[in-house]
């Protein structure tokens, strides 16, 4: 489940980026706007105050014409201004000044050159500059009479303080917004991904074979539409699978019925042929050959019908393993003696005894030996019993026949497989498929490989603990 995390991260990233960019643009804009407005306000306030002071306050002190420094000091103008938190510098011309604070000593030199010039012409002029450490607004004007140039110096630190506070507020706001964006992204992602994850779980159930699993359709959005389509697709698939299963079931049922119906006439045929065989010698030559063929073909028909019935029972799950203690070496010897006496077998010195179904083992080994006899003319057939793998026992039959091409090795356990039809004699091609079914019933399996030096090697691999590997553990040992 890697991709939901990806969607979550991408959604969160996008939202945070959006909020951050918006906050930045709005913050910078707001700060600049407020800053400009505050400066403008301060300036117009200062200008109005300066005009008032120059036209009302200063003339009100009734200074003499061409006042001296002492006159100005005595008039207390600077103290008056100072009480309003306005520092001031009064320029009497010819380098004589009266100032409310020593910090203003170099004010005139630091003012841009056009400010005193414009003041000299009788205009109001202003400049922003730092006085001491405080950012200040300097507004200058000429008092009536033209003797005194008065420069009002206002501390405007509050403006930058206010802007600074605004900036902090905006930053905190942005941080809060980003947090909100993250939470929103999480919630949104959960909302979007929850149905997707649910759909994922549904798909997993379907994968495991639960054809009834459906995605819940909980919304009318794109996802709801998708879920609906997905469910319709699953309906179609489930329907097809059910139809195929029914068809396969009917097919197998048909095979079972056919072979069952064939059994009675085949039983009669086999009995009849067996009597006929006893009397072959008494028959005229032509009739005798025909009768021989009839006897042989009856045998083939019998084998085919029996094998089909056997497979039908596996297909119908009507088979189960009946376990008892089995000495494998002894069992192999018995089957070998009965089915293929020329085959060589060396029983291990220590008996190999496991819980298994001896009838199924006999059938598997018998089919192995029949296969070897058909394809390799019974020559040089070898049976091996190898109990050395840790959890498994291998029973192998090897022959010196033509072997099987590598690309066909996989298929020799399929039904009706005849690798070389010209050599298969009367065989139906079902023997190894049946052996594979018997092996599976005991929790084992078959495998085929080339034998070194030509020929085929077929192995039965059985778990040492057959009982534990059975699905239901139905071990009815006697």
């Amino acid at each position, binding site marked *: 489940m890697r991709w939901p995390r990806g969607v979550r991260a991408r959604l969160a990233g996008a939202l945070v980026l959006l909020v951050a960019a918006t906050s930045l643009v709005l913050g910078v804009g707001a700060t600049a706007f407020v800053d400009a407005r505050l400066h403008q306000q301060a300036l117009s306030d200062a200008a109005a105050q300066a005009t008032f002071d120059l036209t009302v306050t200063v003339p009100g002190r009734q200074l003499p014409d061409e006042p001296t420094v002492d006159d100005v000091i005595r008039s207390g103008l600077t103290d008056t201004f100072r009480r309003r938190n306005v520092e001031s510098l009064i320029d009497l011309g010819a380098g004589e000044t009266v100032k409310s604070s020593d910090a203003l000593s170099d004010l005139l030199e630091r003012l841009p050159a056009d400010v005193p010039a414009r003041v000299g012409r009788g205009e109001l002029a202003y400049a922003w500059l730092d006085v001491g450490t405080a950012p200040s607004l300097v507004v200058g004007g000429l008092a009536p009479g033209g003797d005194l140039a008065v420069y009002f110096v206002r501390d405007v630190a509050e403006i930058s303080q206010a802007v600074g506070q605004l900036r902090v507020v905006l930053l905190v706001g942005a941080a809060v917004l980003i947090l909100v964006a993250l939470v929103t992204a999480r919630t949104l992602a959960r909302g979007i991904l929850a149905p997707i994850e649910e759909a994922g779980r549904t798909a997993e159930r379907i994968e495991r074979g639960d054809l009834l699993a459906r995605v819940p359709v909980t919304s009318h959005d794109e996802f709801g539409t998708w879920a609906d389509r997905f469910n319709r697709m699953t309906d179609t698939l489930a329907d097809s699978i059910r139809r195929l299963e029914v068809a396969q079931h009917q097919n197998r049922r048909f095979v079972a019925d056919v072979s069952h119906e064939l*059994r009675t006439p085949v039983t009669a045929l086999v009995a009849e042929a067996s009597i006929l065989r006893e009397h072959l010698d008494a028959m005229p030559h032509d009739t005798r050959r025909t009768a021989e063929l009839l006897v042989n073909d009856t045998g083939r028909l019998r084998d085919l019908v029996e094998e089909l019935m056997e497979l039908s029972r596996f297909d119908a799950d009507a088979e189960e393993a009946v376990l008892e203690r089995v*000495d494998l070496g002894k069992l192999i010897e018995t089957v070998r003696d009965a089915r293929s006496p020329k085959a060589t077998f060396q029983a291990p010195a220590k008996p190999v005894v496991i819980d298994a179904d001896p009838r199924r083992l006999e059938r598997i080994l018998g089919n192995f030996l029949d296969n070897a006899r058909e394809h390799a003319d019974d020559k040089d057939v070898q049976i091996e019993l190898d109990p050395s793998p840790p959890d498994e026992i291998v029973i192998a039959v090897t022959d010196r026949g033509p072997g099987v091409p590598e690309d066909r090795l996989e298929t020799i356990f399929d039904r009706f497989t005849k690798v070389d039809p010209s050599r298969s004699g009367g065989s139906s091609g079902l023997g190894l498929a049946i052996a594979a079914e018997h092996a599976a019933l005991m929790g084992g399996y078959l495998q085929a490989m080339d034998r070194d030096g030509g020929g085929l090697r077929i192995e039965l691999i059985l778990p040492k603990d057959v009982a534990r590997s059975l699905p239901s553990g139905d071990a009815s040992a006697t």
Partner: protein
Amino acid sequence: MDATILLVEDDPSIREVTAIGLRSAGFTVEVAADGRAGLDRYAAGGIDLVLLDVMLPRMDGLEVAREIRRTSTVPIVMLTARADTIDVVVGLEAGADDYVRKPFEVPELVARVRAALRRGSGASSGSGDPAFDGTPLRLGPLTIDLQGRRVTRDGRDQEIALTRTEFDLLVDLARHPGQVLGRDVLLDRIWGYDYLGDSRLVDVAIGRLRAKIENDPSAPELILTVRGAGYKSAR
């Protein structure tokens, strides 16, 4: 051998060819086409062995076997459709001594019929044994009269009714007290199978025998199972 065999089989072809085969082997053959007719014919008497199809109209072979066993120990051989299913066990538990799997070849059937007839005739065990000296065999509280083929329990007069197969099995085990007899050995000695006999024949017959002679068949004291090997009688 002029034994009379009752053949109960519903398919006319199988019935006819089987009868031909058995007659040419020297037997007298009576036939019946369904279970009810078979039972009636058996009741009429003179039958030495019953050859019984499992699937029969009117009354199936298992029921016929159970019905016959209520009154008789005559050898019964079942003709079963399948060798590797519960059918066989059910047939044996119903009282059959042996079974022949369909499709069968006539010589094979004749061999099974002969083996079943030989049991109890003295050829396979018991009185035919040259070492036989006429003294009855003992197994726990049982007295086995080999000549009269009678088994009695101490303190009771009534004979325990055993089929010939069960009797021979008991005699074989009782003669070798404490010695383990493998299923393959018993199959060979009692049923006449040299190889690849069906060991369920032995297991079911032992079960039926125990039901008749043991006090508690689920905790046998006379015939003991040796896991993975076979059976032995108590010493």
